[in-house]
């Protein structure tokens, strides 16, 4: 809310320096976010929190700061009005307006110019000047917070109704728009048509012009939730609706008219006038409520002893009319405070006047906690990947519409009902889109050597409507192993670089050929298992998906389901043998179709004495020598005994067993 500082000073006369005053406002919770000097005045912009509707005016702000200056504010001059015997209402829907006032004035001269000071204050607050009467209404709204609306009585047919709109009613409003009203739109109407959307905007047809002679000025309390709903429906927020939906003082509407009348009479010719007023006994829930606060609540909540007199003073200036009992304070909730319901609310009132910065800082660390700390798996594996040269990325959980239709069932995709844009309209069902999008972005910037990972969630909808989230760690590699390497040391990254990185991270992984993941190419796809449980997938992304992200570079992708990974957090020490190891190589020729893992599995160490390890050492193909369906594999075996030094013969016996097994099982031909 933008307001004139000079205007505010009229009600807080003791202000010394602007800067100090602005700090005081901020320390009370009325944060001044900017200030602009205009001529001799300063316009300050207060960021008003939604609970403080009572401060959406000069008087409201002045009242809020009055405990600091210990001066009660005086209301500006007005002309007392007495309710006329006959009112001009045909019906008032109480749900819309529990308290409704109208001042009708005859023979007013609206052709006079608006006084210069008034214009300046209005424009300073960002309100356009229209004509004298409208300007006065806006001026008084800025002064005390009551929005009002004037109708040209000569264009208004018959008595006033406050009601919900009927089906198919329309209204062409002051802003030039035609609004189609619905049965939950609150309106002010004459005997025929809606002449205002209540609390939001008036109709152009009955608007007051410089030629208007006879007028109605409406000043009402509208139920905040109804105005809010209507303002949301029409996506229309006005200075009036902004105040009404937050809560205008329900007892203010009559005084506001009295103040308007005073100003009108001060400046122009005013004929006869009369007040129509209609109100239910209890205008709003909070009015008349009293709250009792135990005296020690202040210290218990705030940690500091605050004197009773400070509490009394503060609550008095803020309008709470406090009384002190033996062990408690009893206050009356003032009509302008919609936000005060509980004792704790009064603690805040006292605390903010005391000054948040005047409380001590006490660091209490050693309290008991029902939740024990767990080790963070994600963080652990992320650090391991970083050590192997991976950059961590973070992408939006949203992906473009239809970005995953080719690899997900339509029924599983979670769509956002109100997306911010087409390219962020679905929740990702897998990480592949995020990872490829990052790859594509970098390739297009000539960052061709990538090792990336992202840990995040994927989202899926199930048949029963349930929504699940899965924690995934995914990534990709592309390009050469390290740019900084000398040419001779550079290598194109391959599937096996990826596999090496994953096994370094999680030593007990196994990889098997796979083809059921749609977004990974069938010819280069593996399922990743840990203890025979599937924990992830890897391989080359499908070519159609690469095309979708304009990727031509070779990319290898992986994803791990973090919730399925068994995190190794304990080992048992095994005794180390002190006797020498013996190493033997065996080179065999086998059928191409036989997988490396089959050979290693076949020579499993428990089948043979003293063998402690075996691994594939070399593999090569030579069409000319072996034919195209054979390959040469070299397996390295390590033997060791825990009790004595092995002799050659002991190892020879085992190697012969191994050779025989491979020959019989895989028709291996021994090459050495």
């Amino acid at each position, binding site marked *: 809310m933008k307001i004139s500082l000079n205007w505010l000073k009229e009600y807080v006369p003791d202000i010394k320096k602007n800067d100090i005053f602005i700090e005081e406002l901020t320390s009370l*919770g009325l944060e001044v976010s900017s200030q602009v000097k205009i001529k001799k005045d300063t316009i300050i912009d207060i960021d008003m*929190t939604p609970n403080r509707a009572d401060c959406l005016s000069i008087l409201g702000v002045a009242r809020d700061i009055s405990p600091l200056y210990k001066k009660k504010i005086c209301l500006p001059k007005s002309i007392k009005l007495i309710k006329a015997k006959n009112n001009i209402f045909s019906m008032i829907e109480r749900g819309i307006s529990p308290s409704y006032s109208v001042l009708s004035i005859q023979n007013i001269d609206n052709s006079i110019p608006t006084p210069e000071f008034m214009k300046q204050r209005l424009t300073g607050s960002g309100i356009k000047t229209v004509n004298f009467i409208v300007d006065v209404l806006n001026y008084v709204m800025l002064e005390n917070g009551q929005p009002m609306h004037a109708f040209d009585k000569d264009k208004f047919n018959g008595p006033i109704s406050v009601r919900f709109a009927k089906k198919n009613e329309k209204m062409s409003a002051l802003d030039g728009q035609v609004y189609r009203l619905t049965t939950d739109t609150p309106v002010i109407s004459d005997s025929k048509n809606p002449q205002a959307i209540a609390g939001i905007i008036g109709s152009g047809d009955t608007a007051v012009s410089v030629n208007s002679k006879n007028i109605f000025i409406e000043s009402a309390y509208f139920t905040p939730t109804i105005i809010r*709903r209507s303002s949301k429906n029409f996506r229309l927020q006005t200075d009036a609706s902004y105040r009404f939906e937050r809560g205008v003082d329900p007892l203010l509407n009559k005084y506001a008219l009295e103040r308007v009348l005073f100003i009108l009479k001060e400046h122009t010719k005013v004929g006869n006038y009369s007040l129509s007023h209609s109100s239910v006994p209890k205008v709003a829930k909070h009015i008349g409520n009293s709250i009792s606060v135990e005296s020690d609540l202040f210290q218990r909540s705030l*940690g500091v002893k605050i004197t009773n007199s400070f509490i009394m003073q503060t609550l008095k200036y803020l309008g709470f009319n406090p009384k002190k009992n033996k062990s408690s304070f009893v206050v009356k909730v003032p009509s302008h405070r919609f936000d005060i319901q509980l004792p704790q609310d009064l*603690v805040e009132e006292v605390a903010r006047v005391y000054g948040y910065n005047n409380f001590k800082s006490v660091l209490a660390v050693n309290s008991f906690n029902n939740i024990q700390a767990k080790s963070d798996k994600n963080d652990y594996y992320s650090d391991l990947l*970083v050590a192997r040269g991976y950059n961590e990325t*973070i992408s939006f959980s949203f992906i473009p519409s239809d970005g995953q239709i080719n690899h997900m069932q339509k029924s599983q995709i979670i769509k956002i009902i109100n997306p911010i844009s087409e390219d962020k309209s679905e929740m990702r069902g897998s990480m592949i889109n995020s990872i490829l999008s990052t790859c594509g*972005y970098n390739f297009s910037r000539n960052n061709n050597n990538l090792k990336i990972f992202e840990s995040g969630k994927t989202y899926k909808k199930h048949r029963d409507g349930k*929504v699940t989230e899965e924690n995934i760690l995914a990534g990709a590699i592309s390009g050469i192993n390290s740019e900084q390497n000398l040419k001779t040391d550079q290598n194109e990254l391959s599937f096996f670089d990826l596999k090496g990185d994953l096994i370094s991270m999680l030593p007990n992984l196994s990889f098997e050929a796979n083809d059921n993941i749609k977004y990974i190419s069938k010819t280069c796809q593996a399922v990743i298992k840990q203890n025979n449980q599937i924990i992830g997938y890897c391989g080359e992304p499908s070519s159609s998906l690469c095309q979708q992200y304009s990727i031509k570079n070779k990319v290898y992708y992986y994803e791990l389901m973090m919730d399925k990974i068994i995190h190794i957090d304990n080992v048992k020490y095994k005794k180390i043998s002190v006797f020498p190891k013996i190493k033997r190589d065996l080179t065999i020729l086998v059928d191409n179709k036989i997988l490396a893992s089959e050979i290693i599995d076949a020579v499993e160490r428990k089948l043979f004495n003293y063998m402690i390890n075996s691994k594939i050492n070399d593999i090569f193909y030579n069409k000319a020598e072996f034919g195209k369906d054979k390959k040469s594999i070299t397996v390295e075996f390590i033997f060791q005994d825990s009790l004595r030094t092995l002799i050659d013969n002991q190892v020879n016996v085992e190697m012969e067993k191994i050779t025989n097994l491979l020959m019989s099982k895989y028709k291996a031909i021994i090459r050495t």
Partner: protein
Amino acid sequence: MSKNYTSLISELREKLKKCSSLHDIANIKSFYLGKNGIVSIEFNELKNASIDEKKELGKSLNILKNQVQELISLKLSQAQETKDVDYPIDVTLPGKNISSGSRHPISITINQITSILGKYGFTSVSGIEIEDEFHNFEALNIPDTHPARDMHDTFYVSDNKLLRTHTSSVQIRSMLSNKAPLKIMTPGKVYRCDSDPTHSPMFHQIEGLCIDKDINFCHLKGVLTNFITEFFGRDMEIRFRPSYFPFTEPSAELDIKFRGKWLEVLGCGMVHPNVLTNVKINFKNFSGFAFGLGIERLAMLKYDIVDLRMFYENDISFLSQFKGLK
């Protein structure tokens, strides 16, 4: 009987001075220290000496031996250092397979925050991102009709499912399942229907919650003032000012003075009695404080990042600048 070996030593010095190759030095070494070397020969004299003489002679022989050893080994090490090499290595050539891996600045910031708060006794808890209205709004004292919902432009995925607008929903779930006392921090992604240079539809938050007996406003200030100092690594000018959140009362905002301007960095307050009631904690026995801050905001301040979008573009040239941080 002591014996003077000065001439023997000076002779050795002369010989060593003249030779330079490792081979020559080795010859000298065996000439003096070998099995039948000069020193051994001198030691043979001990056999002929009387018991009294042996004591004296033994002493001077040992000194001789030490001296000879010292001189020769000194010469040897000198010779080794200056030994000619065909191609000395160029240590300035690049190392192999240098890793340029890095954590994302958001993760780094979260780690820094959680390690500070961890010291104060907060435990990290995570939760779901697709929430219902109860855990995201109602339990937090934000009814449907409340203008406070305007502060949260919410993405919906169905009638009652939404993308959480803050990680407070995790606090609600934790309080419901773990009861008081508890002290938790909840880092994670949150979503708001908002996009401009200073707002992103997805961003990261961390919230802290402490519920125990006799927790008051001074404890809230204690955690946050210490946290800010530790996070920025220096005393910062800070201020607390009253603010409004439906789930805290009193509510506050913490601003820091940054390059001469007050910047809002976090919101906080004492947990609202209605919230405690909603999670079945008796507010007569327990009280607590809560705070929430935007990770991107702090990361931008700390690393001088001016454009919020950099965080999600994942340009490697940007990411690798955070190498070495954890």
